[in-house]
């Protein structure tokens, strides 16, 4: 039924933005300061370009595959029994990724706002919300994401609060000095851009009018610009040493906002971040669900969704400190980076063989 409804370009752009921006954005400026040092915000553009290259890779798959879903492409050339383990592995990674992103957000939120509450209570509510959205299908998810986008994006305007404390002299004229570059940390930074690779699974829900690739590229640019603006402000408001020392600079900045009639309103603002975090989680779970649907075609989708979220909830019990969750998230993001580049490459190879095969058949 949902296959009849195709995504619109606008919804797709927003969906991509909502998936990309997530819990890593809260830590991003600190990572940039730590890894690149002075004026590290500029590197956001670099990461944005890498993401763009990756999207172009996906575009090639979309074009060569003529809009067929990746399942159709794969199953045409590779026997099913070989694909099942791949599907399963992807499903596991995506489930865990969504699960850990959720737990990370909850642990941070709970540390600031509800220090005595059990984080798993929040997790339960969040997972329920994700479950309900999962059962509604992709088209409704994108519509919801548009609403949630507006509930979230106004927060960019809050940056005006920091203009008075912004100081150009604090940015320093030095380019990338005083940082400690490690590949691991830059992968962490890159993981805040992840999410665009999900469009691989959207092929079946699009048609010509969707302009999938263009929409994705725009979504990625919006993310890049937002991150860049955020990092730029943070670098001008905080001194470099201070920024390196902050666990959650973006949350701290929010605590700096105050109105004449209200102080300490950051807990209210933290809640709004949920909207974008929720979509990162939701879409990873959705991808995992798509995989599960292909592994168990006989089972009902809603039942699969329920089992998926149940697993997601149970697994979230295992890592219980903020550092553990961070480590899990780093490892998973690293794998996800591999998937983001590897999966389109695999598909391209398969497509190449297919076109070669068809050419041979024609000859």
């Amino acid at each position, binding site marked *: 039924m949902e296959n009849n409804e195709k995504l619109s370009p606008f919804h797709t752009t927003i969906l991509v933005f909502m998936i990309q921006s997530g819990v890593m954005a809260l830590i991003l400026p600190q990572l940039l300061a730590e890894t690149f040092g*002075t004026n590290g915000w500029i590197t956001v553009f670099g990461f944005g370009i890498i993401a763009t290259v990756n999207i172009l890779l996906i575009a090639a798959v979309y074009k060569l595959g003529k809009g067929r879903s990746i399942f159709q492409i794969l199953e045409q050339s590779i026997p099913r029994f070989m694909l099942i383990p791949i599907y399963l592995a992807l499903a596991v990674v995506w489930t865990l990724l969504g699960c850990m992103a959720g737990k990370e957000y909850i642990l941070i939120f709970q*540390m*600031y706002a*509800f*220090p*005595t*509450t*059990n984080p798993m*209570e929040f997790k*339960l*509510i969040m997972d*329920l919300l994700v479950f*309900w959205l999962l*059962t509604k299908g992709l088209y409704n998810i994108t519509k919801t994401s548009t609403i949630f986008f507006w509930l979230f994006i106004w927060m960019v305007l809050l940056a005006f609060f920091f203009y008075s*404390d912004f100081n150009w*002299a*604090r940015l*320093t*004229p*030095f380019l990338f*000095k*005083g940082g400690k570059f490690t590949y691991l940390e830059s992968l962490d930074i890159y993981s805040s851009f992840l999410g665009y690779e999900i469009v691989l699974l959207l092929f079946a829900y699009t048609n010509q009018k969707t302009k999938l690739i263009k929409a994705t590229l725009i979504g990625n640019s919006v993310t890049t610009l937002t991150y860049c603006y955020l990092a730029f402000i943070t670098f001008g*408001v*905080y*001194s*470099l*040493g*201070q920024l390196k*020392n902050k666990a959650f600079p973006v949350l*701290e900045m929010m*605590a*700096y906002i*105050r109105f004449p009639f209200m*102080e*300490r309103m950051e807990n209210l603002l933290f809640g709004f971040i949920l909207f974008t975090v929720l979509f990162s989680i939701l879409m990873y779970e959705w991808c995992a669900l798509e995989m599960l649907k292909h592994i168990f075609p006989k089972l009902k989708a*809603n039942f699969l969704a329920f089992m998926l979220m149940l697993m997601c909830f149970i697994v979230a019990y295992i890592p219980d400190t903020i550092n553990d969750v961070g480590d899990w998230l780093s490892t998973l993001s690293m794998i996800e980076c591999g998937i983001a580049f590897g999966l389109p490459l695999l598909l391209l190879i398969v497509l190449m063989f297919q076109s070669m095969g068809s050419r041979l058949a024609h000859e």
Partner: protein
Amino acid sequence: MNKIMRILLVVTILIMLPGCDYRILERIGFTYAASYDAAPENQVEIGISIPRADPTIDLVRELHSAVGKSSKDARVKFANETDLLLVNGQIRVLLYSEALARKDLSNEINSILRDTSISPLVKISLVNGNAKDMLFKDYKQHLSTDKYINRLLEKASTNNRIPKTTLYEFERDYYDDGIDPIAPILKEQAEDITVDGIGLFRGYKYIGKIYNKDVLLFSILRGKFKKGDMGLDLDSVRDNDGSHEYIMFTSVVSNRAVHVKHNANGPIHVTIAANFKGSIHEYIGDLKLSKDADRHQVEKKVSEILSERGNRLVKQLQQYNVDSLGIGMHVRNSMSYEAWKALNWSEEYPRIKVDCQIHFKAKDYGKIR
């Protein structure tokens, strides 16, 4: 499916509700202000003031104090003395005695920075004398002391009597390698509290102070300055012929630029050029302000006096070896990263040559000509 959803919803609500972490406002003690004093054996004495809003008792605020190894250690002690649940979310003012600050504030500040419930907007201030005594005393003609101090600091910083020094600014300047942090100093004066000056820090250590009369000038030199009042005796430059010349101006808008010149084998030469405009509110003297020539003469005189005082102020800062004006930031930005790292700024700073050029311009001079 809808039925399952509804059942799920009901079950969730049933699971969630008993877990509710309910809090009754009257039973929570929102610490409003805290004081820190040095105690023997490297301990600190902490005092806190909690506003009470219970109509059944005739009490405006609750006060507790304890001596401990750290602020959190002392907190555990006074948590036992009160029936309230102590929380830090609404702390507005932190008062440190000069004696404690002279030792080092790094433990105290770091403990505050770690606490997620404390706002970065909390005001940091030094106290000339005993911080606890100041906080615990009731000042007859004022609000309850904690609120009084908070509003006093807020007013003083919005009027630019003192630069804004919240935890955010304090920490930011601490971590920046081109500027040193500052904090206002409060003093008890009979039945009032007044601003005594500005405390100069090196790291988290209190080094010296700028007295009240130079505070405005300090703010102008530090930059980002919108308004304030200043009175000046103009007699000091010309020989005293018996007539008294005095000027008072307000609503000052200033901009500051720092120019750095590197000399091949001399010390670094820094020029702080500050232009500011003000309205003259009071002028006692022989010149007529409506006459351009006369007014320019007054402007020139004010500029000269302020530049000279500015130079003296910078000398004083150099003697203390604290770069509270942030000159280092501009020196840093004028050279390459490697050269800056090779330069030992705290060694170089007392040696550099600083020239303050302050230009005053009278925007208007009130209702009379």
